[in-house]
């Protein structure tokens, strides 16, 4: 993160940089050659984490490799001048490549092959010469433009490649071919991996070299070299991406460093290097996914170096160093979290940033105690100038190891220079930056309160650096939270600091708001001097400059005074203070006397005010804002006729306000929006104390209303604590004194236009006018959606759109208005009719007041009658089915249910398609003009026959229409239709007609003629037998086979002779069909039905 503040403790970039194997690319002309540029871009661009961990460097012809130091054969006389050389890492990461790759354009079948191979070899030679002394590996890449060599040239390629290797003196595995084709990226990735392998090999070789030195070292003089070599091994392994080995070597380096003798002169160097090694260790531990070990490493690191303070004159350097250890660790931790490491509330980077901030605070304290005398930078020569070769060494004594300062004067000047630099260093900015990082971490890890504390600390830091505006903004936000959680002690602390900031920045609005809150009983102020704050408020009101807050930094006081002088008489002159959200010295409880007011009542409002601060407060003007649907009005609060209100400290005062409701607000709610008190001393400035009343926050959630009675507030205080505010009151319309009478002859009958007379009588004390009457149907659970089946009308027989509107211009006192409405419904349920009357009335207090009144009347609807059907054969025997062309009788039966007498005017049967009436002329109904009463049954009879057999049996025979009316009503008839139930139809192949007399005389022969008709298109053969009985003798064929031709007929004649008198069964014909057995049953049934069951035989009278 680049957001960390910089100072001399900052880690050099090469320490922070992630080590990557360095690979030099030579022979690529990325500027002029398009193909080369493409290759270079493919190598260098988009180096994401998933690609090989290498870094490419384009080497031009002028690139020079660092000079190789002569090899040392013995360390015996060598004394190291420091621990870590500053330029070593730089050399590894940007100057000495592990591999140099030479790119060369050449096709295997190049015509100038011989020249090319020589040129390439010379290039390789020149690079070899340049890297002389380094073990840098050399590789060659041949860029070929051809896609792939043809098979015939395959051998040639192999041969020439071998020749090239020989010419360049490289191994064949160091020669690569890069065909420049579509799959460039794929080739590049493979080349990268190959280079990486070579690089790893190189670093392995290098680390082996360093390990060899070890045998030459001894612990007494070469302690630094132990550290240096282990560090180098660690770094080389990091370049090799062997992280665990790297960690092992860094750990050795760290432990070797611990063993060095520490004196004042090398403290700074040792701890600087220790810090770098520790940083590397922690970084590797995070990379190896061992966060716990990383945290433990940091802890032990800090623990070990905590007491290695060094020279007390430079104590601040020690704290600066610790702060940097923490902040760097915080950054590492944060990076690890972003890479996917989970963190928890109790262990996250925020704590380390917080420590960094804390130690920076300590650093400042140390600075204050030791740098007091460093008033000026020492005169030249500048002791801090100079180049040092080793990390953490002092420029004024580079490379010196002896413990005693060799030049005390120079030493002193240098200390002074450091102290002076520290003195002018902006500690606050650094602390704020650390706190900022910590705050965002604590926010992420669910620690809102910790975050708040840090924000307050940050605000304090802004206060110290005289940025009062920013401090004030932070503090006012935090004050809100502490107030809400009722941590009054903390809130007081924040408030007092905020008040100081507001004073110093001359912000009148904030100053007053904070001052008002400071007077609250919950707040503690310095020296408990609330009177001072009260006097300050009054000063501002009188356009005077308030007295300064205690404990202000002296440097800012003068500027504050200037700010106040310029601001005190200027805008804003009217200062609103939001009292609802702060804890204040004034408490209000407004209350409607009733939860509901009628339109013609005066609304009364009670306001209780308690002043908690012991003073007399003169309120120039107070009002209550009340909002309704239409408007917001301000009701002035008046104290015994006086608009100036005097509030006594520690007392409760009660005010009563009265006002009339607005006629438009009928049916809506009134809400108390706010209560405002205006403080004014006739000096232009006004302070408006606004109490916003929110409906949801009526009662304090912590105090239970039922427990309020236990608060022992003095009786004289109207028991302020137990008053439950009532901030909403509904306005209802005035009670109407109209009455309504509905007369009708209920119940209504289904389908009729049912008349009802309604009479409205004015019982008001005066005339009413502009009367509007609305009639509508109400739905009820047993009668939903009544308007779909029910009609309303003012005229009989004419449906009108609902609701019905009527207007009556005026109705004088005690008079009445009557009207009739009609209702027709097809549903037998209770219909509810609402009659809504709205009108205007002039009352003594309010003119043109709109009143409404609703009336409901319920009308029960019943069926006038019920229709059931019987089917009988021509002989009036009940039947369950009919045959085609076989007439039968439908007998509808009308059972009267109506309690009123009815007149059946006419009836009619409308048959469906497959039936027809048997008579050619439509017969008149048998029950026309029939008067019926309740429980009577009227029977009708109609003879019909089936025309054909339909595909599906019909569901009904037809519609039976009854035209009827009430006997009392002469004008209007109602037609009701009922569906008559169905009768199955069958088709029989033969039809039979039997002619016989109904009554015969004993011992008298009568003919019985039977005609058989063929109904189908094929001849039908029947075997007929006569079933004789004892009661008759008969003549004719007893058994006969007949053939009925299609559409033809066969006649059979018999004579029967009755032998006994009374009801007798005549001989009957039975038929069995020959051939078609399927219709046998039907035929038998038909014969059964047609032949008479009995004939009455009259006895013969002897004359």
């Amino acid at each position, binding site marked *: 993160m680049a957001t960390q503040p910089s100072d001399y403790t900052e880690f050099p970039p090469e320490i922070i940089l992630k080590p990557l194997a360095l690979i030099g690319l030579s022979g690529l002309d990325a500027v002029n050659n398009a193909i080369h540029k493409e290759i270079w871009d493919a190598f260098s661009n988009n180096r994401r984490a998933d690609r090989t961990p290498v870094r490419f460097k384009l080497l031009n012809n002028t690139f020079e490799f660092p000079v190789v130091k002569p090899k040392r054969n013995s360390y015996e006389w060598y004394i190291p001048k420091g621990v870590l050389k500053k330029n070593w890492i730089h050399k590894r990461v940007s100057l000495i490549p592990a591999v140099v790759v030479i790119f060369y354009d050449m096709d295997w079948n190049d015509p100038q092959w011989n020249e090319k191979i020589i040129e390439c070899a010379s290039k390789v030679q020149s690079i070899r010469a340049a890297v002389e002394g380094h073990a840098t590996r050399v590789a060659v890449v041949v860029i070929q433009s051809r896609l792939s060599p043809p098979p015939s040239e395959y051998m040639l390629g192999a041969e020439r490649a071998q020749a090239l290797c020989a010419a360049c003196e490289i191994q064949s595995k160091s020669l690569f071919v890069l065909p420049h084709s579509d799959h460039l990226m794929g080739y590049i990735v493979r080349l990268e991996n190959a280079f990486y392998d070579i690089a790893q090999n190189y670093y392995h070789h290098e680390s082996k070299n360093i390990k060899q030195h070890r045998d030459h070292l001894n612990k007494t003089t070469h302690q630094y070299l132990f550290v240096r070599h282990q560090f180098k091994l660690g770094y080389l392994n990091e370049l090799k991406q062997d992280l665990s080995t790297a960690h092992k070597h860094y750990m050795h380096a760290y432990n070797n460093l611990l063993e060095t003798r520490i004196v004042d002169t090398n403290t700074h160097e040792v701890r600087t290097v220790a810090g770098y090694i520790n940083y590397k260790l922690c970084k590797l531990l995070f990379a190896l996914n061992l966060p716990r070990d990383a945290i433990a490493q940091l802890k032990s690191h800090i623990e070990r170096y905590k007491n290695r303070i060094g020279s007390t004159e430079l104590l601040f350097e020690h704290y600066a160093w610790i702060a940097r250890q923490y902040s760097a660790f915080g950054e590492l931790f944060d990076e690890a979290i972003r890479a996917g490491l989970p963190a928890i*509330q*109790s262990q996250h980077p925020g704590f380390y940033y917080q420590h960094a901030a804390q130690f920076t605070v300590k650093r400042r304290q140390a600075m204050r105690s030791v740098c007091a005398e460093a008033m000026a930078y020492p005169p030249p020569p500048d002791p801090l100038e100079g180049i040092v070769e080793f990390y953490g060494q002092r420029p004024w004594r580079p490379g010196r190891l002896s413990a005693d300062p060799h030049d005390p004067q120079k030493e002193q000047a240098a200390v002074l220079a450091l102290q002076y630099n520290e003195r002018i260093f902006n500690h606050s900015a650094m602390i704020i930056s650390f706190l900022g990082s910590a705050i965002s971490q604590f926010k992420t890890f669910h620690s809102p*309160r*910790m975050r708040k*504390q840090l924000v307050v600390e940050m605000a304090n830091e802004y206060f110290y650096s005289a940025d009062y505006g920013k401090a004030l903004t932070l503090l006012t936000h935090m004050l809100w939270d502490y107030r809400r959680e009722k941590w009054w*002690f903390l809130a007081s*602390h924040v408030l007092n600091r905020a008040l100081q900031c507001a004073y110093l920045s001359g912000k009148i609005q904030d100053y007053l708001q904070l001052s008002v809150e400071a007077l609250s009983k919950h707040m503690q102020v310095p020296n408990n001097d609330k009177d001072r704050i009260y006097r300050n408020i009054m000063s501002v009101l009188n356009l005077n400059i308030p007295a300064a807050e205690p404990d202000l930094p002296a440097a800012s006081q003068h500027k504050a005074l200037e700010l106040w002088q310029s601001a005190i008489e200027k805008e804003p002159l009217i200062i609103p203070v939001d009292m609802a959200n702060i804890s204040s010295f004034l408490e209000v409880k407004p209350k409607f006397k009733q939860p509901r007011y009628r339109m013609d009542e005066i609304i009364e409002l009670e306001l209780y005010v308690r002043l908690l601060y012991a003073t007399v407060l003169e309120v120039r003007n107070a009002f209550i804002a009340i909002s309704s649907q239409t408007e917001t009005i301000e009701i002035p609060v008046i104290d015994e006729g006086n608009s100036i209100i005097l509030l006594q400290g520690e007392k409760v005062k009660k005010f009563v306000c009265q006002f009339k409701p607005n006629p438009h607000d009928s049916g809506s709610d009134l809400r108390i929006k706010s209560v405002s008190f205006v403080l004014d001393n006739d000096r232009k400035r006004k302070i408006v104390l606004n109490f916003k009343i929110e409906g949801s926050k009526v009662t304090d959630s*912590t105090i*239970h209303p039922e427990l309020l009675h236990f*608060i022992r507030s003095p009786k004289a205080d109207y028991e302020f604590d137990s008053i439950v505010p009532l901030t909403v009151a509904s306005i209802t319309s005035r009670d109407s004194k109209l009455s309504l009478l509905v007369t009708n002859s209920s119940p209504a009958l289904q389908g009729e236009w049912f008349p009802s007379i309604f009479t409205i009588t004015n019982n008001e004390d005066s005339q009413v006018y502009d009367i509007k009457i609305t009639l509508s149907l109400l739905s009820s659970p047993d009668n939903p959606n009544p308007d779909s089946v029910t009609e309303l009308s003012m005229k009989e027989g004419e449906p009108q759109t609902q609701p019905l509107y009527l207007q009556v211009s005026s109705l004088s006192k005690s008079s009445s208005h009557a009207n009739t409405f009609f209702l027709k419904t097809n549903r037998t349920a209770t219909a509810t009719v609402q009659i809504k009357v709205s009108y205007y009335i002039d009352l003594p207090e309010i003119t043109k007041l709109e009143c409404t009144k609703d009336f409901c009347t319920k009308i029960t609807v019943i069926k006038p009658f019920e229709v059931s059907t019987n089917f009988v054969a021509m002989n009036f025997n009940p039947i369950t089915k009919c045959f085609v062309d076989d007439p039968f009788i439908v007998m509808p039966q009308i059972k009267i249910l109506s309690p009123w007498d009815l007149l059946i005017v006419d009836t009619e049967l409308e048959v469906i398609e497959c039936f027809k009436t048997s008579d050619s002329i439509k017969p008149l109904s048998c029950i026309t003009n029939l008067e019926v009463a309740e429980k009577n049954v009227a029977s009708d009879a109609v003879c019909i026959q089936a025309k054909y057999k339909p595909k599906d049996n019909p569901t009904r025979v037809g519609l039976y229409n009854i035209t009827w009316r009430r006997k009392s009503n002469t004008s209007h008839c109602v037609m009701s239709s009922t569906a008559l139930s169905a009768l199955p139809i069958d088709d029989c192949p033969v039809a039979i007609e039997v002619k016989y007399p109904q009554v015969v005389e004993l011992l008298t022969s009568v003919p019985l003629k039977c005609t058989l008709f063929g109904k189908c298109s094929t001849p039908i053969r029947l075997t007929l037998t006569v079933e004789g009985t004892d009661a008759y003798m008969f003549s004719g064929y007893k058994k006969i086979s007949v053939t009925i031709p299609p559409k033809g007929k066969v006649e059979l004649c018999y004579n029967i002779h009755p032998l006994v008198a009374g009801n007798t069964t005549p001989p009957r014909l039975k038929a069995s069909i020959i051939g078609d057995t399927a219709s046998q049953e039907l035929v038998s049934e038909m014969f059964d039905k047609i032949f008479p069951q009995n004939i009455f035989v009259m006895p013969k009278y002897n004359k």
Partner: protein
Amino acid sequence: MAVCVAVIGKDNSPLYIGGIGNDTSTDNELSRQWLVHTALDALEERLASTNTNNTGANTNAARTDLRDLYLGLLYSTDTHKIYGYVTNTRIKLVLVTSSTSPSGSNIRDAEVRTALRRLHALYADAICNPFHLPGDQITSLKFDKQVKNIMLNNV
């Protein structure tokens, strides 16, 4: 044993904060209050996690049965260790020990548990006072004395 004891209401407002320190200056009181106040973060986190663990049928019963009122060590700073305890009515009890004093640093978990249980009992006694309004700060001198006793008892 303890350097500070706090009783915090269910709406997270402080009902009682008592501490024994070398001085009663504002700075000391302030740091004490910061410490207790920030401990609420850890407390709330702890409560939230126990609640989600116990969701299911008859949560309420399960929660009160299963949850140990004593929450253990909430967190520790370089100088202090903070322990938490939550009653069934969500009254939070916080106990702070000093890691710098010998008695505070070697304290055993069981001791803290016992102390907080006793504090719970004392709290219950204190709010049994019919003149105490639930949600108000506890001003009882007797309570204060007894709590101070708990704190000093094991020093």
